[in-house]
């Protein structure tokens, strides 16, 4: 039965619905080989049908043809859904994604991520009256200018916009401008105390 291998890719996506599994080079290559093999066989048999006019092979040709399209759909869906997750990562992790995750991407995917980051950056610089606007900030409507935060990890020194340097140590609490600590909260370095 054709198409089993390609379906493995889809199952892999479904099993890891919340994170990005390593790019499955082996299976993708296997599926591409299968597609080529099916195509070759079909071409051969199609020639025979044309020459002899024997219609008994037609069902087989149709079956192989359907398998080709099925394989194609599975591979494309695999690639596309991975890209969608990578895109989502840009919004959630910010410009730098953790190395453990980056090692799961294949080379073209890294290139795509860099290009996407660049495009998004260019766009965000171009809006907001020439000073730029970071669209990944303020995901919820702000209620106050300052928020109370607790530090979750040992982050080290952090320089605020007014030049003050604060030391972010684990379990230390701070009262900081919302604008400046929101990215840190999103990245899981600070915790917002309600």
């Amino acid at each position, binding site marked *: 039965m054709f198409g089993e291998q390609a379906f493995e890719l889809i199952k892999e996506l479904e099993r890891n619905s919340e994170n990005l599994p390593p790019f499955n080079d082996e299976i993708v290559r296997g599926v591409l080989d299968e597609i080529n093999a099916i195509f070759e066989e079909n071409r051969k048999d199609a020639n025979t049908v044309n020459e002899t006019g024997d219609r008994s092979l037609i069902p*087989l040709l149709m079956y192989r043809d359907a398998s080709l399209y099925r394989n194609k759909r599975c591979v494309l869906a695999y690639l596309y859904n991975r890209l969608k997750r990578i895109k989502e990562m840009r919004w959630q992790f910010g410009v730098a994604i953790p190395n453990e995750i980056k090692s799961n991407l294949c080379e073209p995917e890294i290139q795509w991520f860099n290009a996407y980051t660049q495009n998004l950056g260019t766009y965000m610089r171009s809006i907001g009256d020439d000073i730029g606007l970071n669209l990944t900030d303020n995901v919820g409507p702000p209620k106050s200018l300052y928020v109370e935060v607790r530090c979750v990890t040992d982050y080290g020194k952090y320089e605020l916009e007014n030049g003050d340097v604060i030391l972010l140590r684990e379990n230390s609490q701070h009262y900081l401008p919302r604008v400046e600590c929101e990215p840190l909260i999103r990245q*899981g370095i600070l915790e917002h105390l309600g």
Partner: protein
Amino acid sequence: MTYQVVKVLPLVYLVCYCDFCIWLIFNLNVSTGFKRIMQSGSYFPNYFSVEDIIVTQEKIPCIVDANLAGMGCIDQSCETTDLTIGKKIELPLWYAMQFDSNSRYKMLKVQIPDIFQKLSKDICEADSNAVDLGRMNKNFYEFGRYVTRFDNIGHVGPMLVETCRERSRHLMDLTKGSVNEFKNETKLDNAEKELYMKGSKSNELFSKWLLEDVAKIQTANMVSNHRKRKRAAIEMS
């Protein structure tokens, strides 16, 4: 305040429930008007949909209706290279789909799977809430939706709608509990599970809004997931 709650809460459910029913009815073969849409292609809701690919991988019983040269490879139990008339085989939906009643090719007769047969229909009609849909098939509704195109008698479609209608009331009650409390997930099919998640999520948000909870800035979902995973990995090693 209490008055407001009483007024708004059913509305939240109603919206959820109506959405689902409309979605189901729209996609079923219940009226001939939709028949055209159904048969125009298998790519629902879109070409890249993982769920749809998974559903179309389901096996469906077929009877071979012509001598098929060289197609023995389709069935692993078949020892000859050809398939002969009358042989029963199970084929994935993505292939069997071409052979619905409108098809030009009559090489295969597609049967209705057991779970949508008369007996199951009776069970679903008697007490649909007791049925372990998740165990019967993880994609009961989606699969059923595809089966309707092979169903000449036309009972599968209405049965799906009826089952869904009966069960959604029960599902609505379930959403009142919190997401973590609910354990018996095998009873639900995937579409219901998603509906359940959405229902209890909006329920939670709604009660938060009632308590006038201040909007807290949250750590991004993917970040906290990644962190949990990392911690688990460290603990394992």
